[in-house]
């Protein structure tokens, strides 16, 4: 079959690879209908998560049709249209039973690497390096989905592939940040990053009852998109001082909940960006935590900061003093999609969550290198590039 693969640092290719096979009784094989780039893929492509091998299939956010089921699968049949959680969960370990699905104990087949780096290993993920299990990704005509009864959800007839696609990761991740960040009725919420995840975090915050939500970025097209489709306020950090603007936005209190949806390659103006860029390139820190610092600094006393962007290793100038002395709650997570996917599908069916507009560029899988190029460089106002592996 055809697949888009990691060929080396900053090299994406399209090549023929072997078809996936059922390996465990809980597996299904899905014929991929839509698969989409994610900002976290750029960390892999750029070499910031150096556990990739030449030929690894990229992609973790996808929908498609079930074409084969393992002997132990009970919830799915051939022909089902499914959306699949990007993280793989067994459904039975303590973490899964407590709805912390991305922390699953049994789905990372290479736990040693991240146990050494982070203390304990999270679960496996599609297309996200050998540190997260080395599972082949979704930028392919077919994909093997382990523990399908837990991670694959049937798409209601009323919901199109185009809409359901973003439930696989973007919406679920956004919902994880807003929900576990503790957003409740009447809150004022600030979200750093107007990519798909940031927009969906803002939407989730609104649906969870936040009274005011503001999204921060510098890309005009993304801010305009956020205003139009998510219906929340926006701030352009190249035009206003974010600290001043948030004080004014919140009556001098600071946001109740601050959600960081940027990750390890954050950008800002001025010397802070240069400082972090130099340190990262010299590998004196692995990640650039600019948005995290801002979120912690600007959060109200006793507020909540949620780290939703992907980080890999270590950062410098982490404002621990602000966390302690302001009494903040800081939490992070990969997304726990099975916790939310049924609800998200229902909301999508009712039109409460709309995502099609995020697919600014749709193209054949053969064009994946170009898709990643414009996505990475934000050319042509690209927010997400969607690939059609089977036409």
């Amino acid at each position, binding site marked *: 079959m055809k*697949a888009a*693969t990691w060929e*080396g*640092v*900053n*090299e994406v290719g399209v090549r023929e*690879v*072997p078809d*996936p*096979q059922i*390996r*465990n*009784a*809980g597996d299904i094989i899905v014929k991929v209908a839509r698969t989409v780039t994610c900002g976290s893929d750029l960390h892999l492509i750029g*070499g*910031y*998560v*150096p*556990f*990739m*091998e*030449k*030929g*690894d*299939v990229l992609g973790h956010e996808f929908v498609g049709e079930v074409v084969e089921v393992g002997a*132990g699968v009970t919830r799915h049949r051939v022909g089902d249209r499914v959306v699949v959680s990007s993280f793989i969960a*067994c*459904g*039975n*370990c*303590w973490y899964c039973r407590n709805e912390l699905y991305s922390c699953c*104990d*049994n*789905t990372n*087949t*290479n*736990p*040693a*690497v991240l*146990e*050494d*780096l*982070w*203390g*304990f*290993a999270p679960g*496996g993920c599609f297309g996200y390096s*050998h540190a997260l*299990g*080395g*599972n*082949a990704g979704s930028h392919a005509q077919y994909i*093997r989905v*382990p*523990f399908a009864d837990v991670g694959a959800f049937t798409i209601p007839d009323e919901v199109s592939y185009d809409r359901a696609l973003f439930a696989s990761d973007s919406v679920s991740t956004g919902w994880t940040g807003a929900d576990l960040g503790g957003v409740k009725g009447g809150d004022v919420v600030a979200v750093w990053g107007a990519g798909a995840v940031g927009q969906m975090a803002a939407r989730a915050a609104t649906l969870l009852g936040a009274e005011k939500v503001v999204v921060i970025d510098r890309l005009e097209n993304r801010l305009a998109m956020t205003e139009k489709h998510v219906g929340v306020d926006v701030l352009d950090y190249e035009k206003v001082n974010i600290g001043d603007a948030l004080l004014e936005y919140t009556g001098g209190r600071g946001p109740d909940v601050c959600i960081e949806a940027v990750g390890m390659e954050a950008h800002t103006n001025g010397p802070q960006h240069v400082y972090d860029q130099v340190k990262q390139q010299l*590998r004196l820190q*692995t990640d650039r935590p600019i948005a995290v610092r801002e979120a912690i600094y600007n959060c109200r006393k006793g507020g909540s900061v949620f780290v939703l962007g992907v980080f*890999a*290793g*270590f950062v410098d100038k982490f404002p621990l003093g602000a966390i302690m002395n302001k009494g903040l709650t800081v939490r992070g997570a990969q997304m726990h999609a099975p916790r939310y996917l049924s609800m998200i599908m229902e909301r999508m069916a009712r039109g409460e969550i709309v995502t099609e507009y995020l697919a600014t560029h749709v193209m054949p899988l053969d064009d994946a290198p170009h898709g990643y190029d414009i996505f990475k460089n934000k050319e042509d106002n690209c927010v997400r590039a969607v690939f059609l592996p089977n036409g």
Partner: protein
Amino acid sequence: MKNLTKGAVAVTALTVAQKVAKRVLAGDDGPSRGDGKDRWHAATVNLPPERVSDDGSAPPPLRDMAGIEVRMQKAPADKGTEIYVRSTGADVADVRRALREAKSLLETGDVLLPAGPPTTEPTPLNTPIRTATAHGREEGRL
């Protein structure tokens, strides 16, 4: 070549970070962790003790393994059953693998196999990764 260099630097940096993490974050500035043969390796299974073993014997594949000592006890609150394994001669890598597999078998009835067939190819850069992942369940902090 530029990308190759960048990749090599990244691999080196994360490898160093991993070693730093093992020593600094784990508080390992003190005595070395050693080879693991002198300690109990532990995992908690999300099942009550009576469902882990109805006669007190070790669950498979630990049950049939030579050169190990096994003990089990109820975990606090709702956390299941703690299984402890110590080598009395078995290779520690085998102990880790068997303990992880026992937990997975008990909780899910299966042990997840890696994706296959492989889509990757060996290169000079990914030799360390391939070596590490070939033994992914046999190493780590368990």
